[in-house]
Structure formats: structure tokens, C-alpha cells
């Protein structure tokens, strides 16, 4: 069975709604919601947030999708092993920088920290 994040993301993509558009509609923070969809941040627990998510996705109150979403939110948890296990596989090869130069060692270490936090 899909996780809450996976399920919510699939519903969003099926409706061709980008993360940015979705977060503008719901008022959710895109960084946090991206983590929720990737299973790195808990599913929302409050009815208000779940309702606004459902509304942005166009789900009716009694729809099967909304009921599934609520059930998945209720059972969601974050496996602690996910937090750092794949970091090395995520390290980027190329960067789009502002000054158009290669990042320094200090900046590279910042990127590692940022990825670890994300």
C-alpha cells in the first residue's frame, strides 16, 4: 500500500498540479510538503489541513480518495533509517551557481548539510 506522501503526490500529479501551485492554493510550505510527499516529514494530523489538501485536489468529502488519504495520514510514521541512508546517492555532480563558478569546499559542505536536512 502506498504511503500518505506517495498517495497524495500521485493524486496531485494525476490532476497535473505542480508542487508550487498546490502550495499556493493550500498555503502549505513547499519545502515541508515536498518532504511529506517524499516520506521524510509526517502527514498532517489536523482536520483543517487535510481538508484544504482535499479541496486543492478536488476531492469530495465522501470520496474514496479522501477517505484513503485520511486513513493513510492516521497511520503514517517516518522510518528513522530513511533520514541519512541515501545521502551519498543524492550528492549532485553539477550545480547551477549564481556567480557561475565552481562551489568552494565550504560551499560543498553546506550542500551536504542542506541535503541532510532535506
Amino acid at each position, binding site marked *: 500500500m502506498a504511503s500518505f506522501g506517495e498517495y497524495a503526490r500521485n493524486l496531485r500529479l494525476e490532476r497535473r498540479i505542480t508542487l508550487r501551485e498546490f502550495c499556493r492554493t493550500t498555503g502549505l510550505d513547499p519545502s515541508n510538503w*515536498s518532504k511529506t510527499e517524499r516520506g521524510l516529514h509526517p502527514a498532517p494530523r489536523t482536520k483543517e489541513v487535510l481538508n484544504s489538501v482535499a479541496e486543492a485536489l478536488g476531492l469530495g468529502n465522501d470520496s474514496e480518495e479522501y477517505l484513503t488519504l485520511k486513513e493513510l495520514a492516521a497511520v503514517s510514521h517516518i522510518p528513522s533509517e530513511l533520514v541519512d541512508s541515501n545521502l551519498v546517492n543524492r550528492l549532485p*555532480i553539477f550545480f547551477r551557481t549564481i556567480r557561475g563558478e565552481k562551489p568552494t569546499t565550504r560551499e560543498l559542505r553546506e550542500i551536504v548539510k542542506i541535503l541532510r536536512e532535506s
Partner: protein
Amino acid sequence: MTNILPPRLSWDHIRDEAEKFRQEYVRPPDKIPVPIIEIAEIDLNIRINPQPGLRHRSDVEAFLESDLRTLCIDQDLYEDPRQEKRLRFTFAHEIGHLILHRIEISQIQFAGIEEWVDFRIKMKEEDNRWFESQAYEFAGRLLVPRNQLIDKIKEKSDGIQKYRDIADDEEALKDAISKLICDDFFVSAAVIYRRINAEKIWDELSM
């Protein structure tokens, strides 16, 4: 393997790749502006990972994680409507890496973080520049296709002639035209200016 060399790609090859991409993902293929953010996330299934402070902390505004599935992007850039044109080009640039450098990225593996830092520090400036300029070229050709660029310039031919009647500064004219048509492609005027030069169409257009 912890060393990679930029592939020898001709500009024609990059143009063909951009054209193939447009045929596959842009509906209709000659549509401008190209809805690149939507295509990246929805059609290519790339996960977007907006990060607060990425630019400020690392000078980096975006990168494709090496799993090739996630695009990490500065959150300010992602959310600020005033930076939309830059954001769109950034997406196209990173997709350029995905399309042109997928094999090179997939072949490389790191035993740990220190090996990755060492790899990036030792990467030759010239090699890095090649990789980046190829992705840059792909982005330009994707967002500003040659034919549509010519059409948009031709639409301004009356204004061009009026300007030529009173002044003789082709560079200033190119700059002015870039500013006039950049919104049609939803990219910056600087991108249009470089595309005009890259395609060498200015002299061809005997207006």
C-alpha cells in the same frame, strides 16, 4: 568510478535533443512559452525539493540530485513570481543535464562524502565549463526554438526598420528587440540576445 569527462557533443546534436524533447513533451510541440516547470514535475516525474537558504548558504540555486529523480532548488527562487523567468531557465538547464549527461552522472559513484568533495574540487574548470555550456545550450534551444525566434523578430520588422532609419547601432537594436520579445518566450532578454547570436540569424534576416 570517480572521474568523468564531458561528452563531445556537437551543437547540432544538442539542437536535435532539444527538438526531440519538445516533440515528446510539449503539446503542441511549437508552443511557447514552453511549460517547463509542469513538464519537469508532472511528465518527467522529477521530485521538487525546495530548500530555504540554498543560494545564501552555498551560492548554488539548483542541482539535480545524482539519483536523477530529484531537483533541489532554492526556495526563494521557486516561490518568488518576480524570478519566474530565471526559474524556468534553471529548470530547463537542469533537464539539459538529465538529457545530455545522464550516462556520465549514472556511472559515477562515491564511497562517501569526502570522496565527493574531493571529486568536485579536483574537477577541471574546463570540463565543468563544457558540461555547463552544453546544458545551457540545451535550455536555450528548448525554451527559444529557432523558428519561433525568427517569427517573433520578423513581427517587429516595421519597428526595426524605423530604428535603422534613425540610428546605426545593430547591437543596441538586438538588445531592444530582445527586450520586446522575451515575454513571448517567458525568458530574460539576456537569453534572447544570446539566442539571436547563437543562431546567427541577425544577418540572415534581411529586414
